[in-house]
């Protein structure tokens, strides 16, 4: 678990994190935000690479953050950019990194083979990394991040440059790791992937927290928001649309093969709505709570952020 309390980081005049407070649970969390939002700064503060001007970050059950060795032993980090030592083989690199993380040489070799087996890198592990495809490099990056079995795992764009099959596999690997009760933070611009694997979301911009909560909670949308699918004669459909516009707040309207799909807000009494539609001899083909997708939440958070002056 990560508990950030009022963390402020400044680079000269630029405020990278502005009184940033967050509690990240033991689960898979998506850390979202545009470039320059403060995601990398947050990771650096957690890793102890940057000292915050104000506030503090506590990891797991550790009460103090001043013992860098102990703290970094708890963390695994898979960077976004290329960072692998190209003239080493995967097995040498992962074993080398595990020794830097405090494993004895014999343990390191055994564990590195396990980590590389887990990420699905077979015989190629004995080849120089310079000959690897982007997908293979991503797997090695994941292996070096998990080899010392950290409690907290930062994965920065884990599927970057991978083919669809590889992406699916990488997401499944992350889900598997999460089952062992680790805190996993996934930074990604691919919101549908985050939506697929994360159970918790943190959206930040300009160093400030815009939205946070469980994925279920965030995507459930607001109360009284429904998606209505109607079928009937074209004139009737247009008439009912005009009436509904007067009575309710319409968010979106889609016309598709003689069907009308409407997202409506502020519905307090569904029966009243049904009766109204029934008068016009129109079929209700479906009526369900309008769930959001993460992309909508993301955009909405930014709009709200702008209104609040963030």
């Amino acid at each position: 678990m990560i508990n950030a309390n009022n963390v402020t980081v400044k680079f000269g005049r630029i405020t990278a994190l502005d009184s940033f407070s967050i509690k990240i649970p033991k689960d898979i969390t998506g850390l979202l935000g545009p470039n320059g939002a403060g995601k990398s700064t947050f990771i650096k503060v957690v890793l102890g690479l940057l000292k915050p001007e104000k506030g503090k970050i506590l990891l797991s059950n550790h009460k103090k953050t001043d013992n860098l060795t102990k703290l970094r032993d708890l963390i695994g980090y898979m960077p976004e950019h290329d960072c692998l030592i190209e003239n080493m083989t995967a097995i040498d690199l992962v074993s080398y990194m595990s020794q830097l993380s405090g494993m004895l040489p014999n343990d390191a070799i055994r564990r590195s083979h396990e980590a590389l087996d887990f990420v699905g890198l077979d015989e190629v592990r004995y080849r120089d990394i310079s000959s690897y495809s982007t997908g293979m490099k991503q797997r090695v990056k994941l292996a070096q991040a998990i080899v010392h079995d950290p409690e907290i795992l930062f994965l920065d764009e884990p599927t970057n440059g991978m083919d669809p099959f590889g992406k699916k596999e990488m997401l499944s690997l992350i889900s598997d790791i999460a089952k062992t009760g680790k805190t996993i933070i996934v930074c990604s611009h691919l919101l549908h992937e985050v939506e697929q694997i994360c159970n918790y979301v943190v959206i930040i911009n300009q160093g400030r927290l815009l939205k946070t909560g469980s994925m279920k909670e965030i995507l459930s949308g607001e109360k009284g928001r429904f998606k209505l699918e109607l079928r009937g004669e074209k004139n009737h459909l247009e008439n009912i649309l005009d009436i509904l516009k007067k009575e309710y707040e319409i968010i979106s309207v889609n016309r598709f093969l003689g069907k009308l799909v409407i997202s409506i807000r502020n519905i307090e009494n569904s029966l009243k709505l049904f009766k109204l539609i029934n008068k016009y001899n129109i079929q209700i083909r479906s009526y369900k709570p309008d769930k959001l997708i993460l992309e909508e939440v993301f955009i909405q958070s930014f709009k709200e952020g702008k209104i609040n002056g963030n």
Partner: protein
Amino acid sequence: MAIDRIKYRSWTGEKSSHFRRVFAIVKSIFIQKIKSKGILIILIIGFFLAHAFPIIFGALIPHEELTAEMMVADNFFSYLKNGFLVLFTILLVSLVCSDLISQDLKDKSFVLYFSRPIKTLDYLSGKIGGAIVIISIFTFFPFIIYCLVIIGTQTGNDYSGSLGILGKTVIVGILTTVFFVLYGTMISSFTKKKTYAGIGIFMSFFVLIIIGNIFSTFDQNWILISPINLLFYSYDIIYGIEIPLNLNLNIIGILLSCIIFIPFVITFLQTYKKEVGR
């Protein structure tokens, strides 16, 4: 991809000490360098030309004891100031140190170190330590072997005098190794290309010798701008041999300290910037 993927397993082993983590860097550098054919070739050829012949001749030529003159005299029999030793040391340092930091700059792999419990000083200690072990195969251990062979074949009975020279040679060996490695590491931290770093290390020694020689017509102390000359005069001082009167002892002391500490400070700052992600 295996048919049945291996499941993630937790690890419950014991963590090693901080020293062992730094030692892992030393070991990695040593293994990587000793596997390099170029380095092995330089080590073997260099050993024959710069060490084997002086050791054989030194043992065969009758001598009463090990003297400072045998180590650093300005004549054919001088061991430490012979051209082959200087040339092969510079070649070896160029090969060993060229990619010490530059490879990590190129691969952007600092993040792999600094996201672990490794600080700038640990990182540099490991890298420099590994290079020192390799370079000392050429600039430390052969010096000791030479002294032991000469002492073993001496005809006189003054072993204390010979052992005194042996002690001074230990200091000279350490100074030479540390001096070359720190200088090479600094140049490696300036560039992402190991070729540039290698050529930079090799050429800088000769360029500074030329500059020193040109300006020495105005003031003899200019000769000390060349690290090689500076090192040679430091040998003289350590062995208690008189240096030319027109050379300033203070300048030698200051320059020697600078040439050891300044490269280290520069390398430290260059690497520290990477640690904090700048």
